């Protein structure tokens, strides 16, 4: 049995909404081994975004524990958590780049946070931009880039801190299928060359199919199924997984007809 790198135990989170409360997460327990590409899939409202945001405590769970590499994040002091977060990278659906800063300055930002001297910052940032194929855009501003390019900048930015974990919150949901493929390939390449554990949140089966080695299916805040991605894709047991696979097939048919 592989040892868990990210271990989530009995995680619960409830939001208060206008009409009562919403249980976003109901006692989720999950273990993610090191060096996997772990997909978490579910329809909107399944709680997957809340779950991934609990992994770096952007969201504080009501109860449960989040253990990363043997360290219980909820027991850390504010300052310890701040330092720990520097090694847990996160990329977002809407990229979240600094709009008033150049591409190069955006990639330098995490290094600036860590107090790395300007010259070294720039060197490292340029090298990362090269890695994501955007060295010619260093002086451009995010508004001058396409969605796919923006996400590549975000990936370069997240790699600047040499993270051991990369969390992807619907990172390809705002992109077209072609660009999605490019970004997923880039993530896979990063995983293969740098050995980073990747957690991907998505509502699209094809994202899982493309790069995930393991997966979990979430439905209305509860864990439905968890295990090898290949296994679940071939032989889904839960209703939610079957439904998600069906959606994908219908989409493919429409693609074909269209």
């Amino acid at each position: 049995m592989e040892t868990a790198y990210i271990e989530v135990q009995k995680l619960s989170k409830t939001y208060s909404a206008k009409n009562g409360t919403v249980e976003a997460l109901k006692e989720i327990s999950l273990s993610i081994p090191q060096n996997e590409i772990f997909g978490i899939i579910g329809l909107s409202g399944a709680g997957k975004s809340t779950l991934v945001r609990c992994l770096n405590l952007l969201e504080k769970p009501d109860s449960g524990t989040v253990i990363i590499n043997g360290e219980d994040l909820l027991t850390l002091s504010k300052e310890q958590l701040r330092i720990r977060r520097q090694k847990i990278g996160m990329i977002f659906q809407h990229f979240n780049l600094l709009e008033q800063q150049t591409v190069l300055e955006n990639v330098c930002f995490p290094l600036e946070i860590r107090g790395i001297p300007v010259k070294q910052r720039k060197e490292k940032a340029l090298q990362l931009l090269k890695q994501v194929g955007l060295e010619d855009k260093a002086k451009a501003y995010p508004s001058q880039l396409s969605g796919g390019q923006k996400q590549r900048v975000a990936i370069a930015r997240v790699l600047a801190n040499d993270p051991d974990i990369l969390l992807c919150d619907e990172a390809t949901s705002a992109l077209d299928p072609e660009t999605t493929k490019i970004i997923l390939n880039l993530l896979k390449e990063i995983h293969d060359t740098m050995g980073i554990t990747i957690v991907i949140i998505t509502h699209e089966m094809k994202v899982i199919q493309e790069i995930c080695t393991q997966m979990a299916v979430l439905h209305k805040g509860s864990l439905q199924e968890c295990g090898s991605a290949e296994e679940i894709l071939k032989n889904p047991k839960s209703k939610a997984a079957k439904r998600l696979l069906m959606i994908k097939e219908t989409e493919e048919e429409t693609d074909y007809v269209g």
Partner: protein
Amino acid sequence: MLDKAMLEMLLEGIRDTLYMTLLSTFFGYIIGLPLGIVLTLTDKDGIAPNKIIYRILDIIINITRSIPFLILLILLIPLTKLIVGKSYGATATIVPLTFAAAPLIGRMVESSLKEVNQGVIEAAISMGARKRMIIFKVLIGEARTSLLVGVTIVLGTVLGYSAMAGVVGGGGLGDIAIRYGYYRYNTKIMLITLIFIVVIVQLMQGLGMLAAKRLDHRR
């Protein structure tokens, strides 16, 4: 048309008006900028929510903002005397002007900083940024265009207030307009000073907008 003494008086008026407006705005920002930052941080969606601090500042700002400037001017006379030594003239007017500008600036800064995309702030938190870094690099850095537009609006408002100070001998173009136009029925002088005020406001507005546009890289 205008004799030399008149011209000198007008030039002095322009100088006094600029002196009052710029210095009061500057001092206003020394109080208002931190005020706006604290309001943004302590609001319920901010990065350091604190209901009590937010409520207290919110109420203070609302109260001071609802006092008409002319009344504030009179209310602050003892304080002005304490700080400047006298209660009339351009320098003395800077005191009430600063107090009128600060809460307005606090609100303007708050509204500018709250325009910053929450996602970008979250990204900075996820990178392990300190609060200071988030304030300066993310909040102020990303909102700089909006902040500059705010400065332009504040300058125009403060200039308008400074003209009102003419009623109590505050100096500047407003003072001239009131003394000659209102007390002595010299419509010509009043109109000329008015034109100067309009031109100054236009220039500040134009320059401010130009600078804001230059600094904006969002499109």
